[in-house]
């Protein structure tokens, strides 16, 4: 990551997004965070913007605010909803909530970010996927499908923007200490870990290492790729 980069983190109020917002603000980058609710993160390098990633009406003014400060270099899309449940037991409204936040939101936020990145001639878009994609985890049918959709989104966008210095990659997290992990039962967590070569909970510095690589100038030819933690593929 270039020093003094401007980073937008969608879903920065808690979990992975929050941890990354703290890290990158403390590292001296300019960090914008998006979420539906307020954030209690206070740092001179952090600005929180309330916006719903699935609502264009709130995204437009949010990105206008980002645009006023200059070019956007990195988008980290970590907004996600997980509602575990077997296919025949999960409600359609829960399924729709996951589809909207995890997939539609990634698409809408990407479009706004890309406008700013095209202007600056540089962009790195990094999305969080999940090991639910390669593992095809039972009880995570819709969640896994949304994350597979995000991977396809990144891949197709990489085709559309192949001529620009803009890349799209996904990072599949195994387990990370966050509210998302809390919604899984102990049995579900144990089953997920049993399927992993590296079952340890992923730490922030490990995520930062992966993000910094994708966000680097040196990774300009790495696009449309999915990187998984945990030893699965």
């Amino acid at each position: 990551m270039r020093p003094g980069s401007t980073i937008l983190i969608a879903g920065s109020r808690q979990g992975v997004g929050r941890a990354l917002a703290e890290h990158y603000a403390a590292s001296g980058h300019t960090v914008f965070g998006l979420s539906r609710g307020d954030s209690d993160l206070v740092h001179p390098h952090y600005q929180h913007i309330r916006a719903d990633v699935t609502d264009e009406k709130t995204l437009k003014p949010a990105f206008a605010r980002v645009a006023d400060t200059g070019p956007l270099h990195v988008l980290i899309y970590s907004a996600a909803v997980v509602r575990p449940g077997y296919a025949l037991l999960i409600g359609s409204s829960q399924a729709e909530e996951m589809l909207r936040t995890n997939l539609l939101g990634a698409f809408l936020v990407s479009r706004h970010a890309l406008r700013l990145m095209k202007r600056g001639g540089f962009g790195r878009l990094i999305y969080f996927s999940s090991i639910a994609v390669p593992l095809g985890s039972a009880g995570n049918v819709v969640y896994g499908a949304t994350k597979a959709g995000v991977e396809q989104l990144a891949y197709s966008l990489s085709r559309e923007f192949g001529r620009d210095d803009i890349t799209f990659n996904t990072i599949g997290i195994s387990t990370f200490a966050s509210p998302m992990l809390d919604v899984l039962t102990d049995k579900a967590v144990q089953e997920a870990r049993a399927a992993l070569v590296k079952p340890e909970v992923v730490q922030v510095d490990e995520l930062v290492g992966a993000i910094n690589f994708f966000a680097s100038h040196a990774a300009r030819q790495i696009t449309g790729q999915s990187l998984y933690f945990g030893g699965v593929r």
Partner: protein
Amino acid sequence: MRDDILSLVYSAIEEVDPLTTEGKPIERKPEARLLGGDNGVDSLTFVNLVVAIEEHVHKTFGKSVVLVDEENMVAEEHPFRTIGTMADYVEKVMNKA
């Protein structure tokens, strides 16, 4: 105002330097075709042109606009057909911003 916006669109065209599907440069006149028909630009080039116009609007007028927007576009019929219709459309979007 419209002349200013027309100049702005020409500047964006200068920057992107788009070619028509027939491989010719776009003429700098309001009735020149931008999108659709046999002599418009291809859609990927058009994306670059839209981004360039949005950037010029931001630099010149300090307004952050989104041209390809459902809310704006439903009210217009073929806003990107020619340079002239694009300029009219940009003016309307700017006035709403």
